[in-house]
């Protein structure tokens, strides 16, 4: 039966994977931690039936990705709303410990539209095949392939601006 110990074990074993996926979507470690913990809190509330899943981490990932995509969309709206205030702000120094966007891949990822970023991250980071991404995102497989191809192309173009990132 479901127990608190089962959940702790599942949480410790899968936390890092979920955090990495979310971080790639939102570009900020602090925000990724908050979203990841929220996803696990939701999983804990449903653990009595979730523990029977073959892959409960897939459920957590799905919730976390949904929260991350939503957060990215909200951030875009916030940015648009505050853009006109940018010139009034003092320049903000980069915060490498938090902001993953200061790495070449992180910066390139955040330049992608969120719909492309989502499938690229699920494919290359979470190692999901196209059919599974389609199922998880509620999209036709053809759409996933199209977004994946576009995302890969855009990513390559942006990474080419960082010679050290190209192998």
């Amino acid at each position: 039966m479901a127990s608190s110990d089962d959940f702790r074990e599942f949480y410790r074993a899968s936390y890092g994977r979920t955090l990495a996926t979310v971080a790639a979507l939102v570009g900020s470690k602090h925000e990724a931690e908050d979203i990841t913990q929220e996803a696990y809190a939701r999983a804990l509330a449903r653990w009595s039936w979730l523990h029977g899943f073959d892959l409960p981490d897939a459920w957590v990932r799905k919730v976390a990705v949904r929260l991350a995509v939503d957060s990215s969309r909200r951030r875009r709206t916030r940015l648009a709303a505050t853009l006109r205030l940018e010139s009034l702000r003092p320049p903000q120094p980069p915060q490498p410990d938090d902001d993953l966007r200061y790495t070449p891949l992180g910066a390139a990822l955040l330049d992608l539209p969120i719909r492309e970023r989502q499938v690229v991250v699920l494919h290359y980071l979470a190692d999901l095949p196209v059919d599974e991404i389609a199922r998880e995102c509620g999209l036709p497989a053809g759409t996933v392939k199209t977004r994946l191809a576009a995302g890969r192309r855009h990513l390559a173009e942006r990474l080419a601006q960082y010679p050290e990132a190209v192998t």
Partner: protein
Amino acid sequence: MNDVDLREQFHNWAAPLRAAAAPEFAGIRRRARRRTARLAALAGGTAAAIAVAVSLVGGVLTGPAGGPDHVSHPASFWGQSRYPAPGQAPYVFINGSASGSPMIGDAASGRIAGRLATVGTRGIFGAAAVTSNDRLFVLAQQSEADRITFAEARITPSGSVLLRRILPGISVAASQIYGMTVNPAGTRLVLNTWPAGRTGAGKLLVYDLTAGTLVDSWPENHTGVVTFQYWPTADRLALYWQDSGSLAYSGLRILNTAVRSAGPSLAAATQPGPDLRGYHRGAFTADGSVALNMIQSGSAEVLQEFSARSGALLRTIPIGTARAQQDSPDFCGVLWASADGRELLTQCGRRQQEVVNGTVTRVKLAWNFLAPQTPVTTFAW
């Protein structure tokens, strides 16, 4: 840069994050408690507001004796139900939630017909399927012994639930269920399975529920998958086959389960049905006449109804906001549809609606339904 290089870059980039220690478990527990309390407060507040509104309206219409129990819907398809559920088929299977165990309830009255526990094994209910008259539910049970077994739950004339184990089980090591549908007569069951680890092709299995035996199985192929299906007749299964390898097979296809498979692939064994490409997220009404398709239009979640025969768009019905769906673990889509699709119950987030011949009315049903998570069905109606 090729795929392997890119994947390696991703994995190098993510390595420190993957190695990050999980924060203290107590923090997650506190967050979960806060969330539960927040939801409870929200539900309580909503219920109180509805009760006040209903009593005010009841008072105006019926005088002091009016109250929630006296509220009835006008004579219509829904009959005199307390909730707008069809009088003939009100039973719904709900596969547990944060606050309750699996159960079958009478959605017309809100009465719980029976709480269910898996039969002959310790585990959980995974997939669930139901006949169109809501009197027979077939439930897949996943146990700790790596077996998927099956049970049926029958509604008796008195409205109680009889639960018993049926059919031979299957090994979890060999298969996972990703779809399950029972025919309108309650005589046949189709299972869609994929191999454990999801490498290789899946299978479509057809069972005779009367005899309790496996009738036949059809291998899928590596490039195709069944996205949804329904039984237009007792023997014929209509399925939407999405094939990235051979577009010639993609689309709605019909499988005659009365004919032995003789080894062909599922795609080859089926005949093309109406040309309805593009209904990837949809479903069909029980008579197959209407295709129901969910799309996101701007900030709205919209239900489209198409004629399955002509492909003509019959109507569009907004059922909620995209934001409500994204922020909520709750279901967004059609909860129940009459055989011809003229009567619908929908939910998106916490918003529930009845749709009768295109007229939309906001309602509050006895339960809120969680979104399904493959391979676990959260409800069957």
